[in-house]
């Protein structure tokens, strides 16, 4: 049982690491928020579940931490992104797209872009 | 365990230097939050969970809150660079 818990902890750590790598590689603030929030949240869930498998008697506090993480992490990232959006930070677009303006409405280009 | 302490101390020192050298006020507040974060982890590593809990409450919650309210009162809340905000001049 200890070994399975260790495997879950390793799973969570790998996803935290992937989230951090995405924090480096993504080109835009909003993409970075997405990758960071998702990766780190699933990593935290994996680590908490692995700790539950190792020490089953701690389930109540682990459940409280899990609930708070699931409730607060998307709320805080969404609040931050809303603050950025309202203070006028533009969304990044790829060079060959001709999507110029995005004031809350869908404008998707029709042209055939070069797919690499 | 000594390597964990080394990494956390490195993060703390780098964030503390960043507080000094960052040009924007909001970035400095954020970096000071990282300083108190690593201080919490260090207190937990040296087996003082009560001190770590106090540091978490003061450093992560109260000091960020008070510094943020102070930034709002002073008018330094803009996420752009500080050279737009000259001293004594509010911007619209």
């Amino acid at each position, binding site marked *: 049982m200890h070994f399975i818990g*260790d*495997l879950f*902890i*390793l799973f*969570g*750590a*790998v996803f*935290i*690491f992937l989230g*951090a*790598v995405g*924090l480096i590689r993504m080109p835009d*603030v909003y993409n*970075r*928020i997405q990758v*960071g*929030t998702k990766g780190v949240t699933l990593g*935290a869930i994996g*680590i908490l579940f692995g*700790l539950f498998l190792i*020490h089953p008697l*701690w389930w109540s*506090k682990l459940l409280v*931490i899990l609930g*708070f*993480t699931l409730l607060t992490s998307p*709320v*805080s*990232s969404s*609040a*931050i992104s809303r*603050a*950025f959006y*309202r*203070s006028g*930070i533009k969304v990044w677009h790829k060079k060959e797209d001709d999507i110029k303006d995005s004031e809350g409405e869908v404008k998707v280009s029709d042209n055939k872009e070069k797919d690499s | 365990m000594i*390597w964990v302490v080394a990494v956390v101390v490195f*993060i703390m020192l780098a964030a503390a230097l960043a507080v000094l050298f960052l040009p*924007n006020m*909001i*970035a400095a507040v*954020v970096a000071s939050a*990282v300083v108190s*974060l*690593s201080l*919490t*982890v260090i207190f*937990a590593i040296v*087996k003082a*969970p009560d001190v770590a809990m106090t540091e*978490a409450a003061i450093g992560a*919650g*109260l000091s*960020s*809150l008070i510094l*943020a309210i102070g930034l*709002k009162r002073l008018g330094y809340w803009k*996420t752009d660079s500080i050279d737009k905000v000259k001293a004594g001049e*509010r911007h*619209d």
Partner: protein
Amino acid sequence: MTFIEIIAMLLIGMSALIGLYRLIFGPTNPDRIVATDALNLIASVVLVLLALFFDSVLYLDVALVYAVLSFVGMIALARVIESKADDSSKEQEES
């Protein structure tokens, strides 16, 4: 502290260093705020793992308090950034 846990701690430490890189050399200031938001969650995960290493349930309380209060701090910061034109116009009317 088994071998797998040491590897997991190493991965988390590396991701914390990557977050530190974003915090210091981030090209714009919103990147720094995002990096701090990720670092807060990573720190509470590290506190949970310390509870495993020391075999004591007390450290979970520290992780819980840290998770809750870092959320409060980030929300306060977001509200301050968001308070834009209406606040400055109000203050100008007052002065």
